[in-house]
């Protein structure tokens, strides 16, 4: 058996936390890009486009992320694509994030007075210009707090990718725990590392929320 000192455990966990951070960032960026596309579908004038986007959002918000990851991990090979846990993790979390972000941002679009659209139209802007110049900047700025709040949720969700074999913080901690039999220490440290990553963001989201409420 390998001997682990306390610092060995901490060092290994911190090294694994890199992947948690990287995965969170990749999924957030990917989710934002795909989420924008879903948002366009969700607020389009065409009824079918809106329905498809609603269905997409309902599907991802109505099923467990773990199932979505399993389907990604086992489904893509069925289409003939060999897939690494990393790819499945990024793709799975990207789709998951896109549904939530699209819904958050749509609530921002809905919160804008209709006059904003009318004013844009009366200035002679066409639909895309209106969205880009008037609607979306305002929608993003009023939904900043829930967007940051979702980022916290996304970071925590990366823990699930350990189950499909992605070597991040939780999977590494399982391996260390199997070698050291000190679950209290190991999982306690993992919880602490997640807390250090998430708590500042939670506080930031709270501050944004208060600022928005004061306005």
């Amino acid at each position, binding site marked *: 058996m390998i001997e682990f000192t306390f610092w060995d455990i901490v060092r290994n966990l911190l090294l694994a936390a890199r992947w948690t951070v990287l995965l969170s960032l990749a999924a957030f960026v990917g989710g934002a890009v795909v989420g924008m596309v879903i948002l366009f579908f969700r607020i389009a004038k065409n009824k079918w486009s809106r329905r498809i986007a609603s269905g997409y959002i309902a599907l991802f918000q109505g*099923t467990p992320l773990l199932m979505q990851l399993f389907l990604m991990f086992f489904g893509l090979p069925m289409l003939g694509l060999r897939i690494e846990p990393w790819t499945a993790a990024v793709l799975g979390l990207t789709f998951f994030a896109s549904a939530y972000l699209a819904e958050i941002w749509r609530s921002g679009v809905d919160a804008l007075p209709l006059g904003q659209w009318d004013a844009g139209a009366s200035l002679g802007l066409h639909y895309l210009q209106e969205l880009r110049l008037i609607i979306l900047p305002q929608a993003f700025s009023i939904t900043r707090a829930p967007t940051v709040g979702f980022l916290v949720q996304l970071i925590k969700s990366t823990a699930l990718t350990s189950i499909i074999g992605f070597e991040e913080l939780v999977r590494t901690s399982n391996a260390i725990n199997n070698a050291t039999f000190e679950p209290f220490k190991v999982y306690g440290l993992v*919880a602490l590392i997640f807390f250090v990553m998430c708590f500042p963001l939670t506080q930031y989201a709270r501050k944004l929320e208060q600022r928005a409420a004061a306005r």
Partner: protein
Amino acid sequence: MAFAWLPGALGDIARGAATTILLIAVTTLAGTFLSILGAAGRRNGPVLLKRAIGVYVEVVRNTPFLVQLFFIFFGLPSLGIRLDPVLAAMLAMTLNMAAYTIEIVGAGLDAVPGGQTEAALALGLRPRQVFIKIVLPQALKVIYPALTSQIVIMMLESAVVSQIAVRELTYEADMLQARTFRSFETYLVVTVVYLVLSMALRRLLVTGGRRVLGAGVS
């Protein structure tokens, strides 16, 4: 895709779904009860209790449920507390949900105007009666939609308790795919079952809430 295995697997899927439903039913009741105590304590308790509840809420909300589950299931035995997987899952789910619902219930309590308490006290009700009979029902009405969402989210999150071998829906899916070698189809079917369950749960909570609380939930 091949679904020939499906008819023979329906029993297992139904059993797994029943366990998932049991888990969320217990969690909802225990979690809501705990969060009412927690929210009341955070507002009216002694300073030390207020602070302890605050720390509890922040710690749970800023760490993954999976880690909390492992901490309870693998960690507690080293303190001499050995829990059955189902009990460990219920405990972890309840503690996790309570942290979120303490905030929700708290927001509801804050939303009830202070005049309600004053009026009730003036009528001669004791503080506890005021809380249970006047403030709480109004607060629950306000927060009911948020509570409903949290319960549905918790049910979806319960998929990870399969990792400590609780024989719920996801665990049965794992067993099935190991037996049938049709992993994609198995997870597809089980995902659909989850979707139906979450929609049904939401519908049930909305109608139930309307009937009992008269809460306006869409």
